[in-house]
């Protein structure tokens, strides 16, 4: 799903593992509302996109976030062109 705002500011959002299954997508490009300045702002915005998104993002304590492939948290700033990834705590190795 791609939504573009008037000024064209957009953000890539990735989901992995069970979050990918809940949202039904591994990568989406979304319009970046002016009101969203960090990950914490972004979460309710994404949650409103579908029931699956809401379910995936329901408990942010069980979710890890990376902005541009570096770990972040709810306070990490997001700007146009960023890639924000949401995923469960990792279980490799």
């Amino acid at each position: 799903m791609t939504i573009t705002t008037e000024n064209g500011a957009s953000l890539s959002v990735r989901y992995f593992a069970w979050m990918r299954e809940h949202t039904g997508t591994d990568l989406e490009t979304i319009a970046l509302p002016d009101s969203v300045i960090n990950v914490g702002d972004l979460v309710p915005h994404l949650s409103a996109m579908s029931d699956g998104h809401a379910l995936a993002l329901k408990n942010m304590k069980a979710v890890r976030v990376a902005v541009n492939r570096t770990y972040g948290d709810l306070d990490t700033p997001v700007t146009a062109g960023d890639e924000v990834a949401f995923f469960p705590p990792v279980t490799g190795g």
Partner: protein
Amino acid sequence: MSVRVQTGDFDVGAESRALQAETVGGIALFVGTVRGLSSDDGVTAMTLEHFPGMTESELERIEAEARQRWPLEDVTIIHRVGRLLPGEQIVMVAAASAHRQAAFDAAQFIMDFLKTDAPFWKAEERDGKTSWVDAKDSDDAARDRWTG
């Protein structure tokens, strides 16, 4: 420095030999394998998903931290992705140093951080059903012993 994420298997002997050098006194290796049906797990297969690009950069970051902490001659980290069967190799970490304790410590450090920071996720097949593996508090505890 060598960090590899791959679907194919790897040869621990070849990887160990590749780290041998005149300045190396010891190589500590860890090989993680898929536990299977005959264990308590009852797992018939597992599939590993990862975050291409971030996985490699996290593994390189972990390796760089290990190299800052210990005098290492070389490090190899290999992690497989895709579907794996019981008994198969999943991961190998190898640290070569002039000193045995540095090699052991670095290999453990890298495994502990790999387990908590490298973006891999396991889904297990059990009784014909697939389910995502939950992260373990014990892995966080293993990582946290290196800090503070």
